[in-house]
């Protein structure tokens, strides 16, 4: 059972769902308030969605200077595992832990609806229970979701296999190369705009997001195939 720290900023609003989803995935998840400087030895840190500090100045620009972010940066730079969802992704970009930035949606509207994404990378701790190329239906809820990176950075992301999720069919926000999620070069820091925690059970309309959290617990999935079994053609933790 992994220890998962869910960071709560003033204005976070997906923290409770994220905690529940991590627990449903089998993790020992707990909250860490943004003023805290001790993450309490987590195996993974999740920065949840929301509107930290009211999105003032730029989404994530002020949250990245929260006391807790020094600890998150130190954790990440030491190879620790970090996931940013939506506002969490924006914060990770602002903090320089992920390349690029997230700007206002190309058509300006706040978008809150399910979108289709393709899993492009399965060698991160949050996507290894998926199959490469698999398509998922997961909701987005953002006004600033247009992923922007200069041509050189975008080419490096593509060449390095750092695009984790990509919008398929429809690019809702004008993101560069239809990018919905990326990881850093070390593959320990992941950011995604869609909300897997909002789609982790059939009663929520589907469970395509559940394996983000199950992936964390699928320790050494390839070595210990006995921990996994195929259900409906998908890998789920027993």
């Amino acid at each position, binding site marked *: 059972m992994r220890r998962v720290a869910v960071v709560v900023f003033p204005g976070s609003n997906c923290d409770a769902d994220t905690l529940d989803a991590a627990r449903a995935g089998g993790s020992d998840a707990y909250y860490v308030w943004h003023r805290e400087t001790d993450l309490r030895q987590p195996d993974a840190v999740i920065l949840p969605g929301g509107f930290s500090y009211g999105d003032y*100045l*730029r989404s994530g*620009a*002020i949250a990245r*200077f929260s006391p807790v972010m020094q600890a998150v940066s130190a954790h990440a730079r030491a190879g620790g595992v970090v996931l940013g969802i939506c506002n969490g992704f924006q914060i990770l*970009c*602002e903090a320089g832990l992920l390349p*690029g*930035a997230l*700007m*206002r*949606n*190309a*058509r*300006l509207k706040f978008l809150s609806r399910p979108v289709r994404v393709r899993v492009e990378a399965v060698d991160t701790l949050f996507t290894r229970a998926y199959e490469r190329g698999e398509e998922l239906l997961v909701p987005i809820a953002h006004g600033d979701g*247009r992923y*922007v*990176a*200069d041509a050189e950075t975008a080419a490096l992301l593509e060449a390095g296999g750092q695009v984790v999720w990509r919008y398929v069919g429809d690019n809702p926000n*004008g993101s560069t190369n239809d990018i919905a999620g990326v990881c850093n070069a070390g593959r320990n820091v992941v950011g995604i705009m869609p909300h897997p925690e909002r789609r982790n059970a059939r009663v929520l309309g589907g469970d395509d997001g559940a394996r983000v959290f199950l992936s964390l617990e699928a320790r050494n999935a390839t070595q210990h195939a006995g921990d996994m079994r195929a259900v409906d053609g998908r890998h789920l933790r027993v």
Partner: protein
Amino acid sequence: MNAFKVQIRVMPRASLLDPQGQAVQHALESLGFTGVGAVRAGKHLVLELQAANREDAAARARAMCDRLLANPVTEDYLVAVETT
């Protein structure tokens, strides 16, 4: 120490899509304002700042932009210092 007023203009980088500017341009067109070319929308911040001199004020304002006020990936900024 002297009091300065620092005007900071933060603009989306010219090479990037600026949907807010485009929306304003379309609104101006639909209101009948002709001859409007590209419109770009940014932010303007006004700071009251205590500094030794004008150069010091400008240097500190630029440091603020680099650290917080502008995103180096997506925005450019311009700093203008006025004596108050």
